[in-house]
């Protein structure tokens, strides 16, 4: 059907800036794939290359077995939803949705039928006569989706479609788009900089940085087994704590030294993270805020100084500092501590990850 294969795709702009380096990825038919990364990481450029709005500098791209490098956008059987909706301002919602079908010379009755069906499924039938400027943000978003849907493309491209909506609407539309994907059963490629959207919507997430793919995997795998500090820090909110530490010991017993405190490390963690290879080396110790706990015990704990407490309602995020490193602890209820208080923390060592101090790559 419509799998998308990108082979060593490169994008070099005229000013010789390379936006995307050697991007290779196979997107399966009906997959919901998410390209995520900070601004300027090349995710939108990649999407626009799939759409045909940007030329591919080198590499090969296939959509459903067909080499599309030179194929104009209209012949790629794709539809795109833009970040700013890009609705035609002088046309009614109906005309906006009809435009693409009219361009395909589809008979009028058939166009009407399709629009009515799509409008019904998106609940925008009452808006069909309105112009875009008479719609709210959420309605415009829905119309933009509808305009893409009427064409029944085999690939949907979505470029940060929710970033202009308010938080509540965003959560709602997130669920709706996910549901839409299930109903339409087509391939979705979705670009966002918001890791929550990525985690909640995607079958698979491609994390990008500076034009390179960092990791492409399921949300769960990215969360549990990030390949480097970038992915580990990008996925998950609040972000993972990175603390400088040193692996000490010998073949018999391996312990972790965090500043002046010593921590026991369970066997499984040692095996999983290959810690025997890095004995007596400085590493970066990565631990998520929910695996960081306040404690009263003196063993396996380290002293930290409280910076700020953020109350989230059901829990609190306690921001702390050890030496140069910032640590966030997710405390399961309301916490009443003051700035400057010294508290002891420990960690769920079986959830710990270890990264190379120099390269940030997982050990």
């Amino acid at each position, binding site marked *: 059907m419509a799998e998308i294969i990108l082979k060593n795709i490169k994008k070099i702009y005229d000013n010789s800036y390379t936006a995307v380096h050697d991007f290779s990825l196979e997107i399966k038919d009906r997959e919901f794939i998410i390209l995520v990364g900070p601004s300027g990481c090349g995710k939108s450029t990649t999407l626009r290359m799939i*759409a045909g*709005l940007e030329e591919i500098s080198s590499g090969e791209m296939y959509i459903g077995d067909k080499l599309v490098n030179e194929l104009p956008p*209209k012949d790629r059987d794709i539809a795109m939803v*833009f970040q700013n909706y890009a609705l*035609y301002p002088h046309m009614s919602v109906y005309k906006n949705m009809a435009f*693409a079908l009219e361009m395909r010379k589809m008979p009028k009755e058939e166009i009407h039928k399709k629009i009515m069906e799509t409008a019904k499924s998106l609940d925008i039938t009452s808006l069909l006569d309105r112009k875009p*400027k008479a719609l709210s943000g959420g309605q415009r978003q829905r119309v933009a989706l509808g*305009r893409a849907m009427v064409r029944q493309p085999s690939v949907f491209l979505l470029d940060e479609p929710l970033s202009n909506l308010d938080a509540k609407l965003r959560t709602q539309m997130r669920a709706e788009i996910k549901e839409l994907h299930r109903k339409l059963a087509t391939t979705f490629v979705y670009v966002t900089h918001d890791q929550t959207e990525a985690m909640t919507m995607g079958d698979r997430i491609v994390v990008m940085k500076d034009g390179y793919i960092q990791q492409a995997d399921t949300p769960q795998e990215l969360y549990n087994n990030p390949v480097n500090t970038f992915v580990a820090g990008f996925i998950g909110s609040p972000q993972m704590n990175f603390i400088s530490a040193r692996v000490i010991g010998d073949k018999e017993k391996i312990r972790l030294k965090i500043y002046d405190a010593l921590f026991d490390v369970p066997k499984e963690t040692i095996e999983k993270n290959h810690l025997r290879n890095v004995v007596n080396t400085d590493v970066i110790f990565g631990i998520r805020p929910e695996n960081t706990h306040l404690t009263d015990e003196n063993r396996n704990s380290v002293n930290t100084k409280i910076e700020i407490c953020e109350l989230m309602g059901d829990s609190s995020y306690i921001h702390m500092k050890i030496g140069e490193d910032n640590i966030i602890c997710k405390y399961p209820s309301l916490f009443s501590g003051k700035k400057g208080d010294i508290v002891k923390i420990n960690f769920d060592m079986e959830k710990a990850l270890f990264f190379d101090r120099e390269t940030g790559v997982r050990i």
Partner: protein
Amino acid sequence: MKKMSSRRKAVNAVVYVFLSVLALIWILPILWVILTSFREETGSFTPYFLPKGYTINNYINLLTDNTTFDFTRWFSNTLLVSVVTCITSTFFVLSVSYTMSRLRFRSRKPLMNIALILGMFPGFMSMIAVYYVLKAFGIEQSLLALILVYSAGTGLGFYVAKGFFDTVPRALDEAAMLDGASRGRIFWKITLPMSKPIIIYTLLTSFTAPWIDYIFASVIMGDNYENYTVALGLFKMLEKEFIHNYYTQFAAGAVIVSIPIAILFISTQKFYVGGVTGGSVKG
């Protein structure tokens, strides 16, 4: 607070007085021409502002008596030239500006720079050369020549319209491209319907320019009175042998000439105001 507001009032008063004086200075010549056009007594120079007697004969004579000056013919000449020029040059200007705004090609930057530099030279620098070119084609002293001369260079004045097109979101073009529209279709179906203000502006300026031009018309027409435009014709009335008898008719002609332009400006005024792209993309 109170001191501030009284100070502000004083400033406002000064500003209003100043603007009122300016407005009066602007209005006076127009008022004077209108009054003169209704003046009963002939003669060019009168030592008084308000006419001694009023008549509409100046208008009637101007429009009916074509023994010496065929004003109606000149008027229709000018109208023809202006309307045709207006249409062709609007097409040129919009096409060039859309191209410069949207398409990317190697010579785009150099062409824009050349256009900018060429635009710095006054057009009449070229008029002798233009005359000989027209003569070589055997179309000097004709209305066609005027239309050609007025339309040909207008594409150079694309900067304003390009600035406008630059503000139309590119995402709209891209959306239309994905919807299957060609470049031409995007221009006609998407961009132009959203560009009313700039189309009106271009139409107005390209209508007005030939309507009021004197220099090129006088070089190209020479002594071919039949094909005169109103600017040439009216100026003719001010020559020594006519000025005494025709001065008030000249004023009447001036008033008539300004009517179409005034109507155009007033009726299209509303298009300048208000947003165009409202609702297409998040503002």
